[in-house]
Each structure stands twice: as C-alpha cells, then as structure tokens.
C-alpha cells in the first residue's frame, strides 16, 4: 500500500477513535462543532469553489433547515427523522425559489443579492416570534434512546452526535467528489471558468447554477436540522450574514476545491480561536489578519499553497 494511504488511514483511525480516548464532553463538543463547520464549508465549496457562485446566504439555508426541522418537531409533533428530512426538503424548495431569480444576476450583484437574502432571513426569523420563538427557539427534543438486540444506545449523547456529524461529513465529501468528477461537475467547472463560453457550447448555465446552489443549500439544511437537535436551542444568528461571511472566509483561507481546505479552514478559524480562550475577544482581528496573509501570500488558500510547493505534495493533499 502506498505510504500516502497509510497516513490517510491513520488519520481516519485517529478521528474515529477520538471519543474512545477523549473523556471530556467539552472536547467532544468542540470536535463535533468543527465537524459541523467542515460540512458547511464543504457544501459551500460546491457552490463557490466548483461553480464560482460566491454566496453570502449559505448560513441562511443552514438556519432555515435548523428552524424548519425544529418547528416541525415542536409545533406539529413530527418525529425527529421525518422532521429532519422534511425540513431539508422545505429548505431545498426555498433555495430553488430564491436561486431561480438570483442566479440570473452575475458577479458582485449576485454576491450583494445573497447578502441581502442572508440579512432578510435572519430578520424574518428574529421577528416572526410566534413561529420561530424570536431571539431563541428552545426545547427542541434530543434524540431518544434506542434498544437494539438488548443493548441500549443513548442517541442524545455527545459521542453519538460526534459520529453522526463525522458520518455526514464523510458522505458529503463522497457526494461532492462524485458530483465534481461527473459530467455535471465538469459543467460546473466550465461555468466557473467562462460562463459565456459555457453557454455558447450549449450548456444550460442557469439550470446548472441552480443545481449547484440548491445542492449546496440542501446539504447545509440537513446539517442545520441535526444541529438543532444537537443544541436543543437555536438562535437567528446561525442564519445570519455574519455566519455566512465566516464560512466564506474559512473556504478562502483553507483552499477551494480541496478536502484539506474544508478541514483546514474551520480548524484554523473556528477551532483554534475557541481553543485559545484568550484569543476569543480578538477573533475578528485574528480572522482579518489570517485572511489578509492568505490573500497576499496564498491566493489559492493554504491547501492550494501546500499543493504548489512540490508536485509530490500535490498528490498528498487531497
């Protein structure tokens, strides 16, 4: 076996064994949260990195997914799993309805449009308190205990959620790789590189942009639904433009079109500042400094920079 795959295997094994060796719930929470960010950044990469859609509304769909699923459970007593799937479906429909007109505008106008949507959705969630609980929606049920062959599993435990988020992350990455390496993925790449040329070659540019936008939003929504049950309470800020901006910075810093980039960004910009408590108050400064350094010295992000160091290195950085 190639040494590269042995290293990947060992990293994978270490990630799987984290809850076995780490006893502190706080640390499991930290790893779970960074996993959630990795899913969000990976899904944003499908729209931004692969298709060239700079969306500042990505967190809005994470938020809509979280709220839809939570409201279905709280107001209509829908069981967790159907609520999660239905919430994701509702978000996909909303993403398509928003994306259809939005994706007809281009460049900075599209970015500003998504920014406006992000702000509007946060305000709507905040003010529609009869439905959304206003400043906070709490009491979202935890996952139940299940007994399989006489063994009881506590699905509300931090450890279960760690594995659940890890599974979602792995499935998301596999799904994105499959899309990217398909004919659809090549169409996304063509649109990213030259939209006019793609249209002149007969590609349905608006249609494919919509597919990418809705697919990315749907993954974020599914993660949002899980996040709602994990946290038990959610706030409108999770859907806000500030959160979307952070996700965009994470992918720019980590590096687009790269698994490593989707891992590095959240680790560096969420995990490290959370870990260094003293740095929390300086987080905006930390964000800004890292972003400036990366834009100047590593325009393809940290993963892109590492890949460019040596042709062999490019093979090692997925």
């Amino acid at each position, binding site marked *: 076996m190639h040494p590269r795959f042995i290293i990947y295997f060992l990293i994978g094994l270490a990630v799987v064994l984290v809850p076995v060796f780490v006893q502190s719930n706080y640390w499991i929470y930290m790893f779970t949260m960074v996993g959630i960010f990795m899913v969000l950044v990976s899904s944003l990469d499908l729209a931004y990195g692969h298709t060239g859609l700079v969306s500042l509304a990505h967190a809005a769909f994470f938020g809509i997914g979280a709220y839809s699923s939570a409201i279905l459970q709280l107001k209509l007593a829908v069981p967790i799993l159907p609520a999660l799937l239905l919430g994701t479906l509702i978000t996909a429909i909303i993403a398509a309805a928003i994306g259809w007109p939005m994706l007809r505008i281009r460049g900075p106008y599209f970015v500003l449009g998504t920014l406006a949507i992000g702000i509007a959705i946060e305000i709507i969630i905040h003010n529609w308190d009869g439905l959304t609980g206003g400043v906070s929606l709490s009491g979202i049920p935890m996952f139940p205990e299940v007994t399989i062959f006489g063994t009881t599993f506590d699905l509300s435990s931090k450890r279960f959620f760690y594995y659940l988020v890890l599974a979602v992350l792995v499935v998301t990455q596999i799904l994105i790789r499959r899309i990217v390496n398909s*004919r659809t993925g*090549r*169409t996304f*790449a*063509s649109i990213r*590189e*030259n939209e*006019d*040329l793609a*249209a*002149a*070659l*007969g*590609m*349905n*540019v608006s249609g494919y942009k919509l597919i990418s936008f809705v697919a990315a939003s749907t993954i974020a929504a599914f993660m949002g639904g899980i996040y709602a049950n994990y946290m038990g309470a959610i706030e409108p800020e999770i859907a806000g433009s500030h959160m979307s901006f952070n996700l965009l910075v994470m992918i720019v810093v980590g590096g687009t079109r790269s698994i490593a980039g989707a891992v590095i960004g959240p680790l560096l910009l969420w995990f490290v500042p959370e870990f260094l408590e003293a740095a929390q108050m300086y987080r905006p400064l930390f964000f800004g400094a890292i972003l400036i350094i990366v834009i100047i010295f590593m325009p393809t992000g940290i993963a892109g920079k590492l890949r460019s160091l040596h042709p062999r290195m490019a093979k090692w950085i997925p």
Partner: protein
Amino acid sequence: MINLQELNVYYGKSQALHDISISVRSGEIVALIGANGAGKTTVLKAISGLIPWSDGEITLNDQSLRGKKAERIAKMGIAHVPERGGIFGKMTVLENLEIGTVAGSQRKDLEQRFDKVFKLFPRLKERRSQLSSQLSGGERQMLAIGRAMMSDPQLYLLDEPTLGMSPLMVRHLANIVEEVRNQGGTILLVEQNARMALKISQRAYVLEIGRVTRQGASEELLQDEKIIKAYLGL
C-alpha cells in the same frame, strides 16, 4: 443556412453594427474581414446569442434566432469558437472535448467523435490526458476547433483562429479549416489575416466601422486594388 438581414447591434447607446446583411450557404467558407474594432466579433456574438439584438433578423434554416438564449442556439447547431479558443485550462484535453458534446447531447458515439477529432488533430491525441492550460497557442486553437466538431454542428463561427500564430501554424490552421469544410462543415470565418481568409473562402464580406462596405467572391476580392492596399499590405 444562415441569414443576417439589416442587423443593428448596440452597446448601450453606441451602435456597433449598422444594417448588416450577411448570408452563408451550406458547405461554404465565408470570410468576414476587417480591421480591429470593425465589429467582426460582434457579428459572431450576435449570431450565437452572446449579445442581444433587436433590430433586423437572424435566421438559421429560415428559423428565427430572435430572443433565443446562447445555449438554445448552440443546440440548434451553431458552434462558436471564440478568439484565442477559449478553452477550459483546468480540464484535460479529453475533458474539454467531452464538454463539446453538450450542445448535441450525444453520448452514445463519444469514442467515434473523439476518433474523428484525433484523426484531424493527431497532436491532441498525444496530449489527451494533459491539462489544456499546458498546450501551446496553436494546440489550444486546434482543441477549440476539435471541441466544436464534437457537437457536429451545422455552422462553425471561427473568431480569428490564427491570431498570434506563426506563419507555419497559420498555414496548418488554414488547411484544417478547409478540411473541416471538406468533411461537410459550413464556416463563417472572422479574420484579420485577410490573405489567408480570402484564399480559403468562397465568398467574403469586408466590415468597416460596423458596416459591410464590400462583398463578393473571395477570388475577385483578392484582386481588388482597394482590398490589396487596405488589408493585404501591398
């Protein structure tokens, strides 16, 4: 095949094309020559739906292209090969060619289509797995023409295929354009290299500041003193 009738195109308030009437019949190579800024590329972009037009008419086989989007026009059988090829640099040669089938949506005979392109461009076959950003200027142009061939179009719109090429490569590309026609292609060729364009085309139009000022058989235009003086550098 394709007919432009009294076409007017505006960029904002500025008029780029004035009452342009051009036709290309099936199996022809028709050249559109003129200086920089004459509006040659604008004609091609208007045909392929990349810029809007309202005055006048464009028809392909008597079917109007008015209001049709670029992707629809491509699917009707018009392949636009833009200036400098416009290849997708981060894709391999093979992936670029495969993308070319989108307009025709043909998947069944993909290998046959690759073979057809590689027969005309053996160099692309050698470099099929290479990133297209690593190709030379001439090879990129071959790739762009090959990609257009993949959709088996009714009409090729070639925008300055020899721009920036060495004399040897210009001759090679001219042979290729003729070969595409021999294989049944119809071509509207935009060129600044008037000599080459007039030599390989059957008819030609001269465009000056958005207006057709001369037209006729290419052989005759090659002998025309004004054309010789203005475009052939003699």
